[in-house]
């Protein structure tokens, strides 16, 4: 089996001042192998987004975050943040955001932002070369008129278009790992499905590893090889997608599975408690206290 590109061990994260801290991640361990598609699934507030941001070194700089444990990416330790991981951002690791339109700067044309992205992979690239590569990348994500898209601002393009632009930017420097934080959740379901399909095709073709962050197991089923289920800052279950869907072990996973809307109708079963308050949890899902024998 291929080498892991990302290995997270016993990752803990606390927010707050030095005196008063609230731990939100209680020892997360996961790994993503080269060209593997892994999903991290949990409800909002479960800690899935901060895990991804920590792995990219985006949170460590803030004085109110305190992280411990180990994050190994590309042979370096990313837990401390700093230059090493910063140099790999946009280059060896890239990220796709929930709302593509607000993730693009409203005061710069796509062209300028695309150039900057390509520069973080190759600082010496000329504007002309960057533009050529950008056009090619946009054509690859089936944007009909790449030149025109490059000369547009994000607010002039549709959400689906921007999502494609983001995917093109993310893959432009051929990263080893792509983080996708609920890609397209802000868009309508059809567009969301299209972009996921596109992302799947392109990463498959290039052998890019993907860590997909989602609250929706239905989305994950189509996409991922393996799934981690995160609940209240802990990985409660983990296995191949097939295993997880056929014999979910943890009650929380079963609740998530039940929450997938079915064509046959029957509506959306509610989770009893959707946004746990980390300081004083009012309700804990019945039987959710302990992990269901993690599969290594």
């Amino acid at each position, binding site marked *: 089996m291929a080498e892991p590109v990302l290995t997270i061990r016993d990752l803990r994260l606390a927010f707050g001042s030095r005196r008063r801290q609230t731990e939100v991640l209680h020892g997360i361990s996961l790994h993503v192998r080269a060209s593997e598609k892994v999903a991290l699934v949990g409800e909002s507030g479960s800690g899935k987004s901060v895990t991804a941001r920590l792995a*990219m070194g*985006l949170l460590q700089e803030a004085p109110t975050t305190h992280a411990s444990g180990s994050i190994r990416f590309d042979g370096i330790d990313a837990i401390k943040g700093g230059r090493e991981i910063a140099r790999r951002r946009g280059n060896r690791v890239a990220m796709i*955001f929930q709302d593509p339109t607000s*993730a693009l*700067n*409203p005061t710069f044309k796509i062209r300028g932002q695309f150039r*900057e992205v390509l520069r973080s992979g190759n600082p010496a690239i000329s504007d002309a070369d960057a533009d050529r590569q950008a056009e090619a990348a946009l054509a690859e994500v089936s944007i009909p008129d790449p030149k025109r898209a490059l000369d547009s*601002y994000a607010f002039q393009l549709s959400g689906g278009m921007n999502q494609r632009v983001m995917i093109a930017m993310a893959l432009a420097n051929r990263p080893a790992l792509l983080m996708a934080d609920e890609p397209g959740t802000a868009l309508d379901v059809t567009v969301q499905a299209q972009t996921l399909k596109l992302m799947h095709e392109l990463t498959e073709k290039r052998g890019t590893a993907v860590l997909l962050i989602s609250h929706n197991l239905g989305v994950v089923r189509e996409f991922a090889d393996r799934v981690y289920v995160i609940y209240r800052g802990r990985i409660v279950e983990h296995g191949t997608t097939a295993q997880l869907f056929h014999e979910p072990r943890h009650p929380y996973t079963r609740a998530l599975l039940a929450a997938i809307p079915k064509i046959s109708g029957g509506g959306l079963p509610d989770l009893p408690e959707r946004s746990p308050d980390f300081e004083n949890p009012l309700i804990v899902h019945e039987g959710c206290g302990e992990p269901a024998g993690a599969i290594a």
Partner: protein
Amino acid sequence: MIWKSLLHRIGAALIVMVGISMLIFAIARVMPGDPARIALGPNATAEQVAALRAERHLDAALPVQYWEFLKALSRGDLGKSLYTNRPVTTDIAQFLPATLELCIISAILMVLIGLPLGILSAHFRGRFPDHLGRLIALIAVCTPAFVWGVILQLCFGYFWPIFPIEGRLLDSIPVPQGPTGFYLIDLLVAGNGAGFLDALHHLVLPALALAMSGLGQAARLTRSNMIDVYEKPYVEMARAYGFRPWRIATRYAFRPAFIPTLTILGLEFAAMLGNAFLVEKVFGWPGLSRYGVEVIIRKDLDAIVGTVLIIAAAFLIMNIIVDVLVSIINPRIRLAGGRG
């Protein structure tokens, strides 16, 4: 579409201008005391006062007086200054360029110092450069322009005399004759390099004194707007894609933060036109503001009305320029309605 909104702005400015002329006219005429008597001083004879009253239509009803005033204004006639004994327009044409030159250099200093100070503060938020930058900005805002003038004179004019503290040029340099009245431009046009440098040398202290409060405000606004922008997803995106932090600060976060700041910079420029009165007094700067103080102290009616109108007009023009700039740098406004 820019043209349509520009026309709209100019129309609104004209309405405000008419309002200002009424306001200042009302202030000048409604205040207690006989303006003719005030203007001529206690030693004038009753005949002289009566003659002036007749000449200025002071015995007519207020609307009639205002109408006469407007008629004269439409001919470009702002009346006559009793202090210089010349048409007010001549005085203004002579003194306005000095004030504008001072204000424009101050505005440039405000932008060149204030914005980087704000960017530094935001970039190093919560750390030492931020605390220092905020303190400097706060003190700059809280100190009146004349205090800055006095302090700068004391420090760089007396104790460490590296800058001149009075006037626009050394006596040894011939005063440039036109075409703009801006010494920097005129001396450059005349090919007088030494004169140009001397004019610049004379500008440093007054321009800095005048710029302080605006640059403090600019730094504070830039900082807070940048901090708002730092929370935006597109800044996180920029970091996630490995944009260099300094490049984010000076480019990707700065541009969106600058758009709301620019509007306020326009207001700060207006405040400069007012504060120029203080700075010109401190530095003996022969500009419109010093003229304004003189005519106000001498109750020189027409001159006061003319000065206020010109300053208001300069302010309104400045506001329109700022609006146009905002719509140029903000693509959302620039492109609104422009497509399709």
